């Protein structure tokens, strides 16, 4: 009699029963409200026939914010990608041991700082009398009276990049650590610069990990309410703020959900890209 002859795990019915509470929770707190948001966006609060007037209204009122949202998350995602590759690249290819140790210790800090705290940190740091301006005026880059607040779209981008770069850098550095070193050594022997080795030899090998990290960050940035609310809630602002405003001030679920559907679509586009790419990878 082998050790595995007696089954230790629950059978089919048992397994379903054990998972059922978790599934109920997802159904009640995600699938149901999600379904409701779709119905509400295309009707008058779930009643009457289907129509698009909520979307017409949403575009009429918030077209500027729709573009603003796309611009912010696109710029932030691009910056996060560049910085994360730079940090992870130095950790992988750098030659100065002390610099690597310092960098490794340094770059992770924002990863564990909650979004709402990051927003508050930046609210003080980027303000007119914040340390950002202190540095710029003390070093003579700008005049004291020319100091301005960065609490607008730039503040939102800076906060997102500050908070999300460590996460992507951590993933990418992990992937870079496990790639085949022989290609890097070969590049070195042929005298390629480290920047060229990074861009032409290393990045293509970790592209999938980089993409996963960037997609996750992109979805997070479309979800976070506290950062745009605390950095810049005046128009133009992000769709998350408009949704909250639509509900808290007007109780208008129709338009709020129409905006919600648009934010689903923004994430849907990148999810589609991701699925297409991962299918390609599997076939290859």
């Amino acid at each position, binding site marked *: 009699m082998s*050790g595995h002859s*007696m089954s*230790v*795990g*629950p*059978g*089919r019915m*048992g*397994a*379903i029963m*054990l*998972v059922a*509470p*978790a599934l109920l*929770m*997802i159904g009640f*707190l*995600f699938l149901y*409200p*999600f379904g*409701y*948001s779709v119905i509400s966006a295309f009707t008058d609060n779930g009643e009457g026939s289907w129509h698009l007037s909520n979307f017409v209204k949403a575009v009429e009122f918030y077209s500027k914010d729709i573009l603003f949202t796309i611009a912010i998350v696109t710029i932030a995602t691009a910056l996060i990608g560049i910085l994360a590759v730079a940090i992870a690249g130095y950790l992988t290819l750098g030659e*100065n041991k002390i*610099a690597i140790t310092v960098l490794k210790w*340094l770059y992770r800090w924002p*990863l*564990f*700082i*909650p*979004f*709402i*705290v*990051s927003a*508050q*940190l*930046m*609210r*003080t*740091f980027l303000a007119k*009398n914040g*340390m950002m301006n202190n*540095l710029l*005026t003390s070093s003579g880059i700008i005049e004291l009276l020319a100091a301005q607040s960065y609490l607008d779209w730039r503040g939102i981008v800076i906060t997102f990049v500050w908070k999300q770069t460590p996460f992507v850098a951590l993933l990418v550095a992990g992937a870079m650590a496990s790639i085949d070193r022989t290609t890097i050594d070969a590049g070195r022997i042929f005298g390629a610069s480290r920047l060229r080795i990074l861009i032409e030899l290393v990045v293509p090998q970790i592209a999938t990990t980089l993409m996963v990290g960037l997609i996750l960050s992109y*979805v997070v940035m479309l*979800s*976070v*309410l*506290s950062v745009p609310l*605390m950095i810049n809630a005046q128009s133009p602002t992000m769709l*998350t703020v408009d*949704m909250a405003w639509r*509900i808290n001030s007007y109780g208008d*679920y129709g338009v*709020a*959900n129409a*905006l*919600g559907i648009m*934010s689903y679509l923004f*994430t849907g586009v990148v*999810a589609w890209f991701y699925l297409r790419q991962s299918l390609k990878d599997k076939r290859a």
Partner: protein
Amino acid sequence: MVQAVLSHSLSRALLRTLAIGMLAFAIFGPITNMLLWAVAEVWYFPHKLLLEYGFVFWERVFRPEGNATEALFSSVWIAVLTVVVSLAIAIPAGYALARGKMPFRYLVMLLFLLPQAFPAVAVHMNVARTFYGLDLNGSVAGVVLVHASQGLVFAVWIATAAFAAVDGELEAAARNMGAGRWRTFVDVTLPLALPGIMASAIFVFLISMDEFTGTYFVGAPEVVTLPMLLFTSSMEGNYQIASISSLILLVPSVGFMLVIERFLKADVLANVGN
């Protein structure tokens, strides 16, 4: 020749130091700025440094009836309840997904990921609407449910990975020696999976402590957690209270950073999401 190489490597070192210095400022500048505000009593533009500093605001918020004390207690209480609810749901689910004959296992695992894959605001505002009908709005129970639903993917995935990492031979040995299914689970499987379960509990605790969007829609204004206190005081321009709340929220987060590697072992980590 030697001089050229030397000056080249010197300028390289200078560049490297400058880059790391700038990164250090970018990362610690905002944190330092918050620390300054936490002890600021008078500070306004164009003064670069505090005009008066002290702990007056600390006294005000940490009195027994001070708002930070109350917010801290309600945050911790909600986080503890969220951990209890999440583990009660995630332990059986994780065990079944790791050991049981679960049909459509891959799809079920993916289903738990869905709440993370869609922008949360759009979903949470509709949860609040559902909760109105059930009298859950503005209640601790409502907030706990929303927090638990957000932590569920981590709780279930990590618990599944933790159970999967337990050596099946040990369970089989216990069964062969006559232990029942329940006894095997309680005496063998669960203790071996405990470090991973602890990691998922810490994860869920932190998610609940830091959660803002769900509390904003479901809990406000009755339930005041630390993030809600931080938000309202910051919007009122009371940067001292907002900074003190930030500082309190940083303590568990940084503590987590320091201990997580002890709990989340590589063999469990490698299994997450499988």
